């Protein structure tokens, strides 16, 4: 008999103590990680500030955290040259979101359709490859000519950036559906339509969702680049305007705001995904 079983009756208080100790250790580790993160942030920002103030790096070109903070503060309180900061954020978000939605819907529909209908895939396949090979960001100036300075040209560049990753993932997802699952549903009596809607689409959702995370970033890029090239409102215009007046702090400040916006959107998407994928086994190490 093993020693554990011999001491089993007396083990319970020892065990709870041990469990507590383990929980404490886990908690401590969490705090340590958090503290280290904050410390790292302050170290980097502090170093930057110090180097700029000591004129090791040129503050005019590289700016410094305190100036960037001041710039954000000014924008929040007094507004930007193009109007209030919130309006700029809203414009960019609106363009990115609209472009994202259009791109996602088109990508998913076409991806599933081509994944399911072989004929379509064979006919359209090469053209889609050619379009994908094109560096799509160069389309932004063309869209500016076509659709003008308003939001439409930014939405269009967001759409072309979003469409392809979503399309390829949906296509792949539709192609890689478990063959057993399809065979089983057909035996159970599913029609082609039912296979598409109740087997292919649900099993492609995890593929599609992976692309949604990446593609929202792309939508933001599309909107920002569009605004940067020419616009009347938006965060991209803020970057362009700051650059035009050699205001390095302004460029960094716009970048910081963009990062926050992107992170919030990402958080929202993760939340939705968790609700949608209750059927999936929890991945180990998923809690980052």
């Amino acid at each position, binding site marked *: 008999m093993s020693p554990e079983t011999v001491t089993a009756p007396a083990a319970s208080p020892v065990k709870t103590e041990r469990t507590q100790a383990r929980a404490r250790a886990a908690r401590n580790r969490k705090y340590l990680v958090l503290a280290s993160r904050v410390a790292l942030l302050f170290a980097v920002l502090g170093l930057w500030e110090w180097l700029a103030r000591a004129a090791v790096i040129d503050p005019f070109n590289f700016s410094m955290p305190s100036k960037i903070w001041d710039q954000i503060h000014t924008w929040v309180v007094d507004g930007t040259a193009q109007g209030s900061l919130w309006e700029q954020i809203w414009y960019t978000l609106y363009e990115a979101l609209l472009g994202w939605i259009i791109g996602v819907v088109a990508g998913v529909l076409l991806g599933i359709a081509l994944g399911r209908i072989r004929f379509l895939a064979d006919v359209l396949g090469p053209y889609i490859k050619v379009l994908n090979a094109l560096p799509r960001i160069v389309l932004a100036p063309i869209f500016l000519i076509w659709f003008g300075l308003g939001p439409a040209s930014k939405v269009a560049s967001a759409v072309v950036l979003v469409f392809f990753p979503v399309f390829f993932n949906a296509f792949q997802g539709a192609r890689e559906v478990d063959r*057993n699952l399809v065979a089983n549903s*057909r*035996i*159970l009596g599913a029609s082609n339509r039912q296979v598409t809607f*109740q087997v292919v689409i649900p099993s492609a959702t995890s593929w599609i969702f992976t692309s949604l995370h990446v593609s929202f970033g792309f939508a933001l890029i599309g909107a920002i680049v569009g605004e940067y090239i020419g616009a009347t409102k938006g965060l991209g215009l803020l970057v362009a305007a700051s650059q035009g007046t050699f205001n390095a702090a302004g460029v960094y400040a716009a970048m910081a705001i963009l990062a926050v916006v992107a992170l919030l959107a990402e958080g929202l998407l993760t939340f939705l995904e968790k609700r949608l994928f209750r*059927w*999936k086994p929890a991945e180990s190490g998923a809690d980052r």
Partner: protein
Amino acid sequence: MNSQTSPAIELRGASKAFRTPSGALHTAVRDLDLTVGRGEFVAVVGPTGCGKSTTLTLVSGLEEPTEGEVLVAGEPVRGIGDKVGFVFQQDAVFPWRTVLSNVMAGPRFRGVPKAEAKERAREWLARVGLSSFEDRYPHQLSGGMRKRVALAATFVNDPEILLMDEPFSALDVQTRALMSDELLELWAGTGASVVFVTHDLEESIALADKVVVMTAGPATVKEVFEIDLPRPRKVEQVRMEPRFIEIYREIWSSLGEEVRITRERGAVNVA
């Protein structure tokens, strides 16, 4: 034969060849003649990879024979019929559906109203002993429980023909014996004809009325053995009976040869 009209399943000189990715023609089964009477439980045994599963896909209508004929209830098979149930080797439950919803899938696909489908699904879940798990998702169940869900999902469609492709091979030995007993119980109430593919000779004798031994691939029927063990059977007990061991020895002398041929071929391929 105890059928009123035609046998449940009839294969006449059926062959099936596939194109391999390299372009060569691979014959999985050739010149297959097999008759399954109504309500009969037939087990098909053969060496690994000999084309046993192909036989099932031909009967189910998932694949068409290259040559010969496949008849179900006297009618040639054209596409997937609604009389057929199929239990796969791997898990084929829908991971995004709950247990109840999985069992409801068949009737719902076939246009049964939701309330009735739910009622029938609950009934079959009760029979496989999973009533209290109806809201779980498949990943929350054990392998044996998932198999039970698959059985319930198949039986809820009232199949006249039940095709099973090594359904229990992924389970551990104890669970497998338990599932075999449960399968016999479920089947006893339905009068369905069963074709049960396995490479486990013990399992096939314990379950079936008739054991069909296939040759090394390309597969064809080598010999058919009637199993005269009385029903109802309990898998764990029937294995101990002298008659069982006698039958086992008899069939193994036929099957063992094919297994050896397959093994030797494998050895040649490796060398």
